[in-house]
């Protein structure tokens, strides 16, 4: 016989009917942990509050530029009487930043914080989302309904429905007047400035950004003065896109650095002078330079009044010209100057410059070079940022281009190869090239915080005032 037959009743009677009312270790622990952990959470928050530390409530790390404000919630979150929500206001931003308006006739001006989203970690606040732009440019409206420029009014992003660059779209060609055959310059040359020698010119023998301090391969060594000159030359107009352009654009081509080594401005067929005509002068000054040169020469070499043709110049079999002419020195000078000018206007200058010969004028007029510094007027491009690439990978037309009017600006498709809205691709959002704020209209900001305030708390905040019109 087993100890007992198990029956429901015997089993049930082993059980104390009040057992569930008593605490068991498991329930006790569950209760203690529940209370304990909740209390811990509350204590943590209370401690944060007592320590006047609001960092815990931050919805994310501040952008680097604002990291000082991480504990100064009130700097941006302005408390207003009767309003529960304390969003960051435009006015708070405008205390430190001027945000010039985009366009005079834009129909809608967003709040600062709607584009520059804070608490997203140490990111560039300027790196705004495309949707910020497409909310207007997706179906562009303008005050009065007229646009100052013809653009696509339904842009979705760089990757989609962005128009081709204006310079290419118009089909006008390069506005420059300097004749340059890129393909000739990029072929192998058999003569170098130093004599017969095979050389290959490279793009950066002529095209460099202003900050590049390497010596020119065939030109003068750049000096600080040169650079400053170049910079101002490059940025002769204020750039609305960048308050402080640095090395974004190629410096303009400079004759003495880029051309002079090969292209000596010779004017005298008899090689009586080692120097050429000075570059960058108007024809009148060139004429005076020539007069001076020849007058000086004839004064020192009166024998040259008679010109004897070189025997070796008579190889054609033509009857020789009168062998001797006697000319007065002024006559000689005129003759020589006319000769030199003939060379210059027909050949030396004309090789690159476009000269026109107005009727009745003794001297030609030189057309201004008119070489565009910036091709994309409403977008920023930084050559320096692309320095890891070969020039021809984008400017592929350079090796074959023969005409000045060829636009060597690569098309948008070229950019899109890398700038794509996918992972592991170059940035393709609007802000990469475009800027909302028209920095040309920037006004100075007058600082009002002390360092103590920024470090230990901004006690007061000016009462809201109406944002000045256009100051967003």
């Amino acid at each position: 016989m087993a100890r007992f037959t198990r029956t429901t009743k015997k089993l049930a009677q082993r059980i104390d009917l009040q057992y569930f009312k008593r605490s068991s270790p498991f329930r006790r622990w569950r209760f203690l942990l529940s209370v304990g952990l909740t209390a811990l959470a509350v204590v943590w928050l209370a401690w944060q509050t007592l320590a006047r530390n609001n960092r815990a409530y931050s919805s994310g790390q501040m952008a680097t530029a604002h990291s000082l404000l991480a504990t100064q919630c009130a700097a941006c979150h302005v408390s207003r009487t009767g309003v529960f929500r304390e969003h960051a206001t435009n006015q708070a931003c405008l205390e430190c930043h001027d945000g010039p308006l985009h366009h005079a006739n834009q129909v809608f001006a967003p709040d600062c914080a709607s584009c520059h989203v804070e608490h997203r970690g140490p990111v560039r606040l300027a790196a705004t989302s495309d949707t910020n732009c497409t909310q207007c440019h997706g179906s562009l409206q303008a005050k009065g309904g007229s646009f100052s420029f013809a653009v696509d009014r339904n842009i979705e992003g760089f990757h989609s429905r962005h128009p081709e660059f204006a310079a290419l779209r118009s089909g006008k060609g390069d506005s420059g007047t300097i004749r340059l055959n890129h393909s000739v310059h990029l072929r192998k040359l058999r003569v170098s400035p130093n004599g017969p020698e095979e050389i290959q010119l490279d793009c950066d023998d002529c095209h460099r950004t202003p900050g590049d301090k390497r010596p020119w391969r065939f030109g003068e060594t750049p000096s600080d003065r040169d650079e400053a000159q170049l910079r101002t030359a490059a940025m002769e107009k204020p750039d609305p896109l960048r308050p402080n352009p640095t090395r974004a654009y190629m410096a303009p081509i400079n004759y003495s650095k880029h051309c002079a080594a090969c292209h000596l401005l010779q004017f005298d067929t008899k090689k009586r002078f080692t120097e050429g005509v000075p570059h960058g002068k108007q024809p009148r000054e060139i004429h005076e330079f020539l007069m001076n040169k020849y007058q000086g020469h004839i004064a020192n070499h009166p024998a040259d009044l008679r010109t004897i043709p070189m025997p070796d110049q008579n190889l054609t079999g033509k009857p020789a010209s009168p062998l001797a002419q006697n000319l007065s020195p002024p006559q000689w000078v005129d003759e020589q100057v006319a000769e030199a000018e003939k060379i210059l206007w027909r050949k030396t200058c004309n090789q690159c410059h476009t000269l026109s010969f107005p009727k009745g004028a003794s001297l030609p007029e030189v057309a201004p070079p008119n070489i565009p510094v910036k091709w994309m007027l409403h977008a920023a491009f930084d050559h320096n940022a692309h320095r890891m690439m070969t020039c021809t990978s984008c400017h592929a037309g350079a090796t074959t281009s023969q005409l000045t009017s060829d636009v060597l600006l690569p098309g948008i498709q070229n950019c899109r190869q890398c700038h794509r809205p996918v992972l592991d691709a170059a940035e393709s959002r609007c802000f990469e090239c475009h800027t909302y704020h028209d920095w040309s209209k920037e006004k100075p900001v007058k600082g009002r915080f002390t360092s103590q305030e920024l470090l230990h708390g901004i006690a007061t905040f000016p009462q809201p005032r109406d944002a000045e019109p256009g100051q967003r």
Partner: protein
Amino acid sequence: MLIDETHKKWRDFSLVFLLVATAFYCWYPMRPPQGRNGGSAVGIAFGIIGSAFMVFAGLLGARKKFPVWRLGPAQTWMRGHLWLGLLSLPLILFHGAFRFGGTLTTVLMVLLVIVIVSGVFGAVLQHYMPRMMTREVPLETIFEQIDSVRAQLLEEADKSVAAVCGPLGVMAVGSRKLPAGGYSERGGATPAAAAAATPALALTEEDSAPLRSFYLRQMRPHLEKPGAGDHPLADPGKASGIFEELRKRVPPMVQETVEDLEDICEEERQLRRQARLHHWLHGWLLLHIPVSLALLVLGAVHAYKALRF
């Protein structure tokens, strides 16, 4: 709870809900300028729905405190708890656009992940453990009463040995307090009446010696000390060997007693196993419940602060 065919509606609802939410999540940054953001209208909507689900899931605990309130069957709440609680994770991830944000929100996210992971762990346990317990512990009793039942087993063992060996001279076993509402009120035979103090089947000193010494030296200390798992009697294989040995050494009259003792050891082993399984089956709650409480408290603070700023 067991997720079976009865969950079909909930499962389908959750899947559809998740798909719709995901579609919405993918679609919504097309419109507002800030992109995916907890503060945007859709972000807040995700947050509200997600936290509503969490609160609902948390209310299961409160619901259990008032089991007779007819607020819908507990199993409906449990189903909601499982599915909506699970849904709250993607919804909150959508709310935060997969960013953890600041300290508080990071803490919240960590807590939520702990809660969901422990909950899923618990649900998985609830799929396997009850079956395991049913299979391995046929003699199971109520977990809270294991100690009391074990004491009763000891008492029973004492009595059956005393019945053949005479008084054992160990501490009187009647010292266990009868709980209120126990036998007397429920019409059970009082256990004391079951066995008389005088042995019905007295053995000579010599015959009873092996049984007595086995019981006093080995089995009784084992029964008295709960939790000592290294005792040979705690191992079914060793125990059956020990009892086989004992059976050879005792007279045939007490074979029954030996059998009883073996049964008692078996039951004790099963109870021990039950306690262990029970700890597994319910232990995760020690993490799940406190953390979810903290999550709800901090979540409320977060909601207040986030709506304000």
